[in-house]
């Protein structure tokens, strides 16, 4: 056996013992990334003074397992006891944060938001009525992309297209764990909110994004004070 083969066998053994080996699809890895971004949003809300709670789709405190819905999912789905967060600021409407919910766009077409923060009264109405939240009730949404390689340009193009149907000022973000000078060039040119190289070991990027989320929550509070 040559040296490369020995190294390859050892690499296989190491990866096989890691969390990565549980993620047998790109979607699964992206789902984990969405949950990570969800926690960053909640941290930002907390830093702005919010009280956080978690509940499932039936309004109960979730037990020891938190279910996160991924694409495509409806806010009213009871397929599992999906978990969402309740964000409560003083003297402001209560918000909910969700992973992987569909919302209705301006055209009436449904789109998925990887992570979305919306008014709780809208969320409750949608769960009761088994309908989809409206785009203008989503105060913050993030399109999350997890890639092992530089992100393909078509992902940024899709995001740009999505924005035409779910516009809401500059409260929509495009966040990736990797980079692509082409995608970034296009998003920067069109003045869209984006962040790249997002990973827990890259504190500069994490802080920049969390600060942007904090600013959104600060504006939300000011608007409703």
């Amino acid at each position: 056996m040559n040296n490369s083969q020995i190294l390859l066998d050892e690499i296989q053994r190491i990866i096989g013992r890691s969390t990565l080996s549980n993620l047998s699809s790109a979607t699964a890895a992206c789902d984990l990334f969405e949950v990570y971004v969800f926690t960053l949003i909640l941290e930002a809300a907390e830093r702005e003074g919010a009280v956080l709670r978690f509940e499932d789709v039936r309004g109960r405190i979730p037990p020891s397992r938190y279910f996160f819905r991924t694409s495509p999912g409806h806010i009213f789905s009871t397929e599992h006891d999906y978990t969402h967060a309740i964000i409560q600021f003083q003297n402001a409407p209560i918000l909910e944060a969700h992973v992987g919910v569909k919302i209705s766009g301006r055209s009436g077409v449904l789109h998925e938001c990887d992570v979305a923060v919306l008014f709780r009264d809208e969320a409750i109405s949608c769960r009761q009525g088994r309908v989809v939240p409206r785009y203008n009730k989503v105060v913050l949404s993030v399109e999350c992309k997890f890639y092992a390689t530089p992100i393909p340009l078509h992902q940024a193009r899709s995001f740009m297209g999505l924005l035409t149907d779910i516009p809401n000022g500059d409260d929509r973000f495009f966040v990736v764990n990797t980079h692509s000078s082409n995608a970034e060039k296009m998003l920067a040119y069109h003045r869209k909110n984006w962040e790249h190289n997002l990973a827990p070991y890259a504190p500069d990027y994490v802080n920049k994004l969390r600060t942007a989320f904090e600013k959104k929550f600060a504006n939300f509070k000011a608007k409703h004070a």
Partner: protein
Amino acid sequence: MNEQEMIKLNADLQRMLNDLGLGWINEQVNEQVRAGKIVTKEVQMFKEVDAEQLSLAGSYRPSGRPQQMIGVEPYTPEEQLQMLLDAIEKSMTDVAAMKEEIASFFRGQDSEQQPAPSQIVLDQVEGQGTITLSLEENVDEERLTQQLHRLIAQLRAEINS
């Protein structure tokens, strides 16, 4: 390592990832390979020449200074191999770090009224299976990641030898 050996190592690595159920990493790398490498080149521009002037229809001749243009070139076998190794390192490092960060966030939310979860469940597509990740599991992901970095560094040294 010569080009043929690099191509073989690339195939072996891709097979290993498929065996581990991580074929999506191969797909992403292959997508990038297919898209090619964006390069800026200086290109001599040509201008259509008056056909009557040269009594030749459809003639073109070099005109003016060369221009900077965008082109696409294929990746070399070595670049393809390095991209695959980068992708393996990136995905393992990021997944391990994210899982730890998520677990740490939920541990920080632990209270009497709302105990921290011990697991998160990712529902891939509604009704089509789930992936459960334990947030308490005592797997030393950081140590595994460091081992992977060391092994891949050794593999890169083999490639450059």
